Each structure stands twice: as C-alpha cells, then as structure tokens.
C-alpha cells in the first residue's frame, strides 16, 4: 500500500519551496498594493505598515463596484446560458451514435481550435443587426458561444457515465423527455457543471478586449477593461493604485477557487474515469 505511506520530509520541503515559488508573484502583487511610495521601487524593502492610500485612490478613480456588477452579470449570464444549452446538446450528442451527430460534435469541438481574428467586423455587423451593440447581453451571448465547445465536450463525456437504463425506466414511468432531462439527468451531470464553471469562469471574467470593442458606455464596462483603461490614463508612473485594483479584481476568483477546488478535483476524476 505504497500510496498511503507519508513521503519523506525532505521531499515535502522541496515541494513546499516549489509551491512558494509559484505563489511568489501573487504575494508580490499583494505586497505592492500596500507598499508606501517612498520604498515602492526598491524591490528588497518590505512594507512595514499597512498603507491603504492606493486602495482609496483606486476606489476614487474607478467605479469598482459598478464594474464588479457588470463583470458578474456577464460572467454569470454567460455561464448560465452555456450550461442551459450545452448540457442538453452534450447529452444528446453522447447518446446518439449516428454519423450526423458525430459530425455535429466535431463541428462544435472545432470551436476550440478556430481562431476568430477575422470575425471581428462580421461580428460587429451582426451585433448591430440584432440591436445588441453596446449591451451586456451581447457579451453574455459571446461568452456563451466561446464556452459552448468545451462545455459540450464535458457534458458528453460525463453523460457516458450515466446508465441508459435510468432513462428507459423513467420513460416507462411516463416521464416526458424534457422533464426527464431536467429532473433526472441534469442533477446527475452536476460534476460536469462544476468542472465547467470552475475551469471556464476565468475566461469571461478576465476578457478585456471584447468589452472594450463592443461596449461604449463606461457604466456597462467590466473590470478588466477598466483596469486597462485606468493604466492607459498615465497610471504607469503611479502603479500603486493599479496593483490595488488588480488585487480587488482577482480576489473574488481566488476566494471562489479556494472554496471549490476540492469539488473541482472530484468532478475531474469522474470525468476522466468515463471520458
């Protein structure tokens, strides 16, 4: 039972060292956000007081909470929409074995691969035609379109772990297809949902180009473009508030991650067993 023996302390120490190395930039970010101006550019001086002026400046110059609200709206909207549609499509694609469905599956998967650079202007025209330009709704749809390939892939992989007999017996009990899916199958696919959320929430949260191009109204702007625009406003000579803002924008994701990482691993294990 070699798996249960505790490894030697030396190896553990080495691993800890590696982990600290990975954490160093994150700690650096945190440290720089509270480092007083006098020693800001001396890399070896540690802050010896809690200097909060940068945070004050950040809150004063940038509508942080509005940005946070917009980011939450776009990110959560995108996730919910993706989950709604991709769970169904993933399930169907996993259950159908005809050639047509396999091609559809490949078609969707190709979205993981195809670059979208040339699509900007057609996309922009489409947004105008649908009267979705300068709306957060458009960002929700675009986030969903970007997330669907991965989500479909995950859902179809997890579907294979659900025994078919379950559906058959439910169908015998007179359960409609849609009800069957949402009442019985979808809850069983929770690990896929969890995995998807945890591995994809960053994409929409951290996107800074799309909002900048497709939104005009500063009151709809999400956090990352806010930081980029804040920096462009001659902030590079006074980086303190930028660091503070960065900490604030990363914090929600880090907290989320800390609370969900166990769950994510479980989801991935299930996925890889049957995937």
């Amino acid at each position, binding site marked *: 039972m*070699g798996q249960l023996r505790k490894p030697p302390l030396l190896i553990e120490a080495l691993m800890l060292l590696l982990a600290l190395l990975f954490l160093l930039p994150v700690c650096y970010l945190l440290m720089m956000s509270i480092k007083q101006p006098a020693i800001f550019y001396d890399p070896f001086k540690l802050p010896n007081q809690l200097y909060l002026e940068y945070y004050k400046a950040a809150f004063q110059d940038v509508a942080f909470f509005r940005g946070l609200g917009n980011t939450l709206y776009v990110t959560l909207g995108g996730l919910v929409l993706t989950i709604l549609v991709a769970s169904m499509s993933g399930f169907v694609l996993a259950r159908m074995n005809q050639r047509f469905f396999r091609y559809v599956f490949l078609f969707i998967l190709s979205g993981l691969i195809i670059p979208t650079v040339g699509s900007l202007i057609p996309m922009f025209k489409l947004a105008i035609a649908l009267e979705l330009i300068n709306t957060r709704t458009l960002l929700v749809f675009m986030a969903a379109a970007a997330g669907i390939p991965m989500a479909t892939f995950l859902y179809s992989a997890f579907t294979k772990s659900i025994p078919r007999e379950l559906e058959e017996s439910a169908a015998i009990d007179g359960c409609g297809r849609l009800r069957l899916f949402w009442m019985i199958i979808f809850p069983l696919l929770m690990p896929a949902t969890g995995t998807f959320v945890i591995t994809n929430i960053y994409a929409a949260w951290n996107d800074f180009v799309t909002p900048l191009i497709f939104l005009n109204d500063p009151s709809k702007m999400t956090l990352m473009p806010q930081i980029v625009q804040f920096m462009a406003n001659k902030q590079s000579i006074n980086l303190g508030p930028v660091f503070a803002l960065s900490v604030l924008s990363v914090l929600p994701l880090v907290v989320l991650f800390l609370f969900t990482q166990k769950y994510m691993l479980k989801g991935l294990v299930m996925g890889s067993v049957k995937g």
Partner: protein
Amino acid sequence: MPALLIFGMFFYLPFLQSIYYSFTEWNALKPPRFIGFDNYVNLLKDQRMKDGFFNTMKMVAFGVIVQNTLALFLAVMLNKPFRTKAFLRTSLYLPIVISLVVTSIIWGQLLNYEGLFNGILIRLGLESIIQDWLGTVQTSFPTIILLTQWQGIGYCAIIYLAGLQSIPNDIYEAAEIEGAKGFTLFRTITLPMLMTTVSVVLFLIVVGGLRLFELPYILTNGGPGTSSYTLFLAVYNAAFQNTQYGYATAASIVLAFFIIIVAIVQLRITSKREVEL
C-alpha cells in the same frame, strides 16, 4: 439545438464570412477587392509570420516535452499524502485564476531591469547574467515560455492528478504483491492506465501552444524586433496594426487548418498508443 444556434450564430457565421475576405484586399473601411490567392502567397515572405511560426513551434515542442512531463511528475507528487497537500495543490493551480492583465502587470515589474528578479541575481553574485528579460532578443520568447509554464502547468497537473486518482487502488495492490515497485510500478501500471488523460493533456497543450497570443501581446507585442512573435500575434497585428483584414483572415484560415491537422495527427498518435499499451 440551441447550443448550435448560439454557437453557429456568434461564432461560425462570422468565421464563414471571414473566409470570403481572405481572398480580398480589405482595410475594413473600403469594400473588399477580390485578389485571388495573393494573400496566401504573401504569407510566405512575411518576417513576422516566419518568426511567429518558429516561435510557435518552439512553444509546442517545449509544451509537449517539458510541460507535459513536469505536469505528470507534479501530479504524481501531489497524489502522495503530503501533510500540506491542500496548500500545495492550491498554490500550484492558483496562477491560472490571475488574469492576463494582472499577470502582465506583476511580471512586467518583476522582470524589469531594476526589478526583484535581477535584484536577487545580483545578491547571488550573478551580476553578469542580469538583463532586461523581456527586452532582449535572445531572452524575450524563452521568458514568455517560462511564464506560460507558471500559468498553465498547475492546470495540466490537476488533470493528471484526476487521472491518477481514478486508477483503482486494487490494481496497485495486485502488482505490489507480484513484487513491482517504484518506477516499474509507474511504467507498467500507472502510465498505461493514464493514456487517455495523456492524450487529453497533450491535446490541450498543443492547441494552447498553437494559439499562444495574449502573453506576448500584452508583455512585448512581439518585440524586440520580431523576436517574440507567435503565429496568432502575427495574424492579430496584421489585422489591427496594419489594417490588412483580408490578409489577416487568410493567415487565420491557414492557421486554423494547421491547428486542425496537428490536432488530428496528435490525437491519432496518442490513440494508437492507447491501443498498443
């Protein structure tokens, strides 16, 4: 299916339109002018595309050989019952949460000529090797590759870890009874059982490597010179910096086919190995 609808509309439709543009000279303002295959021919003599191609290949090779191996090694380690297991896993995975904007702010400062990294080198008496890591032709792209490792290796390791944990314990027990140990155990049991995961991780690494864009874009914008261009960045700058949208779409279509072929070949190879093992 609704997924198809959204995906088709907000992803494929714009893409299909862009195929037409690839045969035109188009600056986004004037109506496109049809020029046949000129764009495709010109791709071959573009310095940025060339450097982008070689750098992208370096990235993929590095990812497949080093990142993949290290991630597997890390996963094996993380699977051991360390006392600080949760902490180790969290800290290795955490970088992926940090956005690229923030990443570039942090590393831009750390790797600056007067930054912490060079400061440490000086204290270690290595003054001769300090330099402007992202501002030197020889070091800019290698530095970017290392940063991709900081960001991405934890993600791969976690996927491997999941694969490891899904291997039933009784197989190990049976093998240990037969006297298998240490590396032999890993080679004869773990690796073959893990082949599916290997192909998933390799797929992610290869596609991710081919699509490498944001880090060089935000840290060096391909410079100094064209030393840290990637294919994707070359395409992006052709469109947005040089306003040659027709040319850029031609390049992106070539890139797409290229990625698809590499992905298919790679999947073929790994799935064959899965069967053999």
